[in-house]
């Protein structure tokens, strides 16, 4: 195989050598830190190892544990619930705000809006989560105080199974929304004006223009955002960890928190790897599904 591909001329040989030299750092890093660990994870999933004593071969015990683990079902469900809610809100609010921003505004005003929407995105997630843990405090928080002003009773944002996932969703949407707004805005502004002119000549009203022209032309952007958004949301970790530490019960425990708990708190390296592999499969399926479904609704110019 290799010999067949051997280069004929010295010049070719030089090019090939150069290519591999250029790729050398990447290939080494890749083998050591991505491909190697990927296979190591598969290997770890069939052993029992707490790092303090020697690893023991465990066959499929970890996979059996995965299937019979009563907590993991709830945890995956919570993860999907939170992921779906944040995704939907970010796409919806992001689009609405982008459309509102896509009009002639004073330079300073539009700059101010873009800045204020986008800034939380570049702030560290821990700073954001710590901030919101204070704001959502039941008795002393700003949020409940403001709600109290309009007659709403104090909400146990961080202390109840019903509200704590909502708190996580709000924190995440608040932080990431700006990114969606900016990307949508880019998408909107790249739509050629001829499309609008044509629609107007046909006598379409504003809503019709939006639903028949803007949305279809924006669908690749929506697909792009929903794919990267889904992968990111399923891996949400810092917000619930800092806000509620997964509680009460497992109400806000996400799958990555569970991997962290099993791997780096209880040092069950085998089981942690097994859960991580299940997450890989889930992300793989979700991404495939999104691309498959996208054929029905994404419109390419």
């Amino acid at each position: 195989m290799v010999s067949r591909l051997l280069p004929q001329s010295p010049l070719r040989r030089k090019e090939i050598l150069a290519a591999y030299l250029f790729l050398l750092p990447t290939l080494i890093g890749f083998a050591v830190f991505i491909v190697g660990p990927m296979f190591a994870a598969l290997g770890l999933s069939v052993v029992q190892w707490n790092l303090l004593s020697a690893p023991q071969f465990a066959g499929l015990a970890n996979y059996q544990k995965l299937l019979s683990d009563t907590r993991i079902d709830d945890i995956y469900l919570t993860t999907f619930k939170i992921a779906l809610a944040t995704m939907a809100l970010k796409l919806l609010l992001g689009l609405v705000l982008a459309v509102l921003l896509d009009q002639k505004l004073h330079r300073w005003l539009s700059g101010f809006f873009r800045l204020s929407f986008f800034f939380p995105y570049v702030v560290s997630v821990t700073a954001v989560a710590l901030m919101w843990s204070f704001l959502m405090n039941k008795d002393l928080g700003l949020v409940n105080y403001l709600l109290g002003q309009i007659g709403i009773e104090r909400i146990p944002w961080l202390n109840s199974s019903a509200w704590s996932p909502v708190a996580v969703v709000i924190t995440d949407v608040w932080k990431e929304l700006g990114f969606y707004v900016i990307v949508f805005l880019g998408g909107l502004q790249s739509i050629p004006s001829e499309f609008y002119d044509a629609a107007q000549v046909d006598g379409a009203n504003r809503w019709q223009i939006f639903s028949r022209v803007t949305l279809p032309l924006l669908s690749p952007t929506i697909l792009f955002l929903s794919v990267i958004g889904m992968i990111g949301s399923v891996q949400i970790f810092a917000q619930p960890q800092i806000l509620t530490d997964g509680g009460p019960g497992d109400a806000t425990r996400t799958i990555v928190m569970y991997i962290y708990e099993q791997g780096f708190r209880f040092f069950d390296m085998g089981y942690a790897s097994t859960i991580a592999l299940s997450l890989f499969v889930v992300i793989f399926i979700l991404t495939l599904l999104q691309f498959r479904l996208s054929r029905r609704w994404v419109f390419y110019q």
Partner: protein
Amino acid sequence: MTTTVYQDHASASGAHVARKPWPWAKIGSIALLLVCSAIMIAPFLWIMQAAFSDAAAAYVLPPRLFPSAPTLDNFYAVFDLVPFGSFILNSLFVATTITIGQLITCSMGAYAFARLEFPGKRVLFVVLLATLMIPLQVTIVPQFILMRQTGLYNTHAAIILPALVSPFGIFLLRQYFMTIPTELEDAARIDGAGYFTIFWRIIMPLSAPALTTLGIVCFVYWWNEYFIPLIMINSPELQLLPVGLTLLRGRYSAGAVGNVAAGVTMAVIPVLIIFLFFQRHIIKSIATTGLKG
């Protein structure tokens, strides 16, 4: 999949919407945008007033936007409680090193994929892109074990080394390199320039925008990264800022609100200043790339 960079002034489509004046719609939409801006800004104002308040007044009802008796005590306390200066230096060091490293490795890799022909090129490229789908959590356990075996656990190298390669960075730069016309290179080759000279003297200088984009995205990502330092670093003196901030909550999360608020403020202010100066670049970079790292 690319998204277009936002333009500075309202584009044709925007002008279209505004062409027919609907003053009420416009006023309404501006009001709505203002409310949203307020929701984005208010938490920062609240945390700053808590940072400047004394211990007992940091967290009182009704909440205030300005401290009654401003004090810097909380800021001094932060430096007493945790090695906050080290957090910032560590984060700067780690994020800068990774950014420089990625710019080097990714541009080299991207050059090979964009300009050179070699056996296995397509397969390698596809494999590289496919790994983007592998969640970090799958590789982190083996990486952790690797670091402990090599004695790198609880050192900055444990964070930096795995971060030096980035399939995403290679992809981003390759796309850009492909758009550079080959005439200059051909001319250089006739003059006897080697591959490295071409890469270093021609491709790199012409790729400043793409390199800046990757640099910004990479730096912002590693400046904010929480999961990996949480796993790889154990000593407060070596800790990075995002995890360090949470240490301010202290034992049994008993840290005073004012101290945590001061820590958060000090983490946010530098970012705000840099952001105000380079906002155009930063927003553009992150929006074009779409991904964080």
